[in-house]
C-alpha cells in the first residue's frame, strides 16, 4: 500500500497541476531509517511523482552532515522546499494530517515564488535585517 490513498493521490495530483515553476523538495533521512523517516520519504516520493514540476532530493543526515548543517537541519525527518533558492521552509516530522495540506500549500506558494502575504505584512518583514528562526510546534491531527 502506498503512503497516500488512491483518492487522495488524485486530488493532490489535481492541485499540483497548477504549480507554476519548478519546486525541489530536499529531504534528510539516514541510512538506518527511523520509522517516521521512512514514512516521510515514501510520502514525498509519491507526492513528487505526481507532477513533473516537482523533484525530490534525499540526503543522508549522518553521511552528509555538512549539507545538513548548511541548511540548518538539526533533526530528522526533515523536509525543506526550494524554489529559485532556499525558502527557509522546514518541516520536522512526518508532514501528515493537517500538515500535509500545509506542505501542499507551501509547494504551490514556492511554485509561485510568492508567499501570498499582504503588502502590509511584506513591508513589515522587509525591515528584518538579521537572522530570524521561527519554530512552530504543532501536534499531530
Amino acid at each position, binding site marked *: 500500500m502506498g503512503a497516500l490513498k488512491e483518492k487522495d493521490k488524485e486530488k493532490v495530483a489535481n492541485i499540483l497541476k497548477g504549480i507554476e515553476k519548478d519546486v525541489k523538495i530536499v529531504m534528510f533521512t539516514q541510512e538506518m531509517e527511523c520509522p*517516521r523517516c521512512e514514512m516521510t520519504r515514501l510520502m514525498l516520493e509519491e507526492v513528487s511523482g505526481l507532477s513533473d514540476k516537482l523533484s525530490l532530493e534525499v540526503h543522508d543526515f549522518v553521511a552528509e552532515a555538512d549539507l545538513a548543517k548548511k541548511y*540548518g537541519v538539526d*533533526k530528522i525527518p526533515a523536509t525543506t522546499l526550494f*524554489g529559485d*533558492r532556499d*525558502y*527557509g*521552509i*522546514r*518541516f*520536522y*516530522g*512526518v*508532514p501528515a494530517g493537517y*500538515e500535509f495540506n*500545509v506542505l501542499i500549500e507551501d509547494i504551490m*506558494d*514556492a511554485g509561485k515564488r*510568492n*508567499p501570498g*502575504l*499582504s503588502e*502590509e*505584512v*511584506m513591508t*513589515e*518583514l*522587509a*525591515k*528584518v*535585517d*538579521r*537572522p*530570524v*528562526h*521561527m*519554530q*512552530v*510546534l*504543532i*501536534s*499531530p491531527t
Partner: protein
Amino acid sequence: MASDYITADMVESSEFSFLVVKYNVHGVPHTVINEEHSIVGAQSEMEFAHAIIKAIGKK
C-alpha cells in the same frame, strides 16, 4: 519565503518531545522566535510579523 533572513520550522511536537520540554510548551500551536520569544495560539500574519520585528529589537 518572504525574507531570506527568516527560517520557519514546522515541528511535530510528538516526534520531538525534547523541544516541548525545552520551550515549556503547554498548548499548540506554540511559536518560538529566536529561542527566547514565544507566541501561543494562532495569530494573524500581521501579528506574527510584528512579533518578529519585536524579537529582533526593531520597531
